[in-house]
């Protein structure tokens, strides 16, 4: 796992469907209906059913995990939720993750994630600190 500052270490596109949201609701215990019911999402003024922010945070780090080969080496992971991911009931949603080296020391590496949906960034300050030990 050798990397240079600014290097893109992983890039991956994920397709979410309504099935993905139901599966995440069950696994996480977050059953807010805005994640699976169009009528409820509309009634609270949302553009449609949204992916759970925590689902996006969850898969956005996976390209980093695959690159390091061990999720146990992640020391710290943070994101800010800046824009919703609207999951169309027929077409779903495509979310792209680009993982780039943001900082590097002898002991650890900071990976900065750019996560986009419909050409807009949906997470801000998305960073994972990885142990090199």
């Amino acid at each position: 796992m050798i990397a240079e500052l600014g290097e893109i270490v992983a890039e991956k596109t994920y397709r979410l469907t309504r099935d993905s949201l139901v599966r995440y609701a069950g696994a996480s215990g977050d059953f807010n209906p805005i994640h699976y019911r169009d009528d409820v999402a509309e009634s609270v003024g949302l553009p449609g059913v949204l992916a759970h922010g925590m689902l996006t945070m969850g898969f956005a780090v996976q390209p980093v995990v695959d690159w390091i080969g061990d999720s146990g080496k992640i020391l710290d992971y943070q994101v800010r939720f800046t824009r919703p991911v609207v999951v169309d009931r027929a077409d779903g949603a495509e979310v792209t993750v680009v993982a780039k080296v943001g900082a590097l020391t002898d002991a650890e590496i900071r990976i900065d994630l750019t996560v986009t949906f419909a050409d807009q960034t949906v997470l801000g300050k998305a960073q994972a600190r990885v142990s090199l030990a």
Partner: protein
Amino acid sequence: MPVNPELQGRVFAPTAPYLVGREKIREFSRAVLATSPLNNDPDAAKAAGYADIVAPPTFPIVIQESTLAQLLAEPDAGIDFTRVVHGDQRFSYTRPIVAGDELTATLAVTAIKSLGGHSMVTSESTITDQTGAHVVTAISTLVVRGDE
């Protein structure tokens, strides 16, 4: 109704111990599209030096959820759940979670801020194992939208 500013500094009772099951980790891994053998295969995890399969980095949300439920249920909090959106989230690890861990979380409200009619509630859930050792701290900011 604004969020009660006196919540800042409040510390809640520790949650009941949560036993992390192997199948729960597998279920969560499938949901977040985690395909690493360490998240799924006990032999692979043991070969990498872990006692059992390793939970994905955002798994602590499952345990943090019960602490946020405590916060939202606080009678004087003034938090209307239908107006809550997730602002940011962070997990700071001492060690990864593995199947077999028995985890307890303690929530502390660290900041209450107002910004343009919205309230921002920042809390830290400190998660420890059955020996009392720190595993991970989950830090979360909830934004409670004001009247529009």
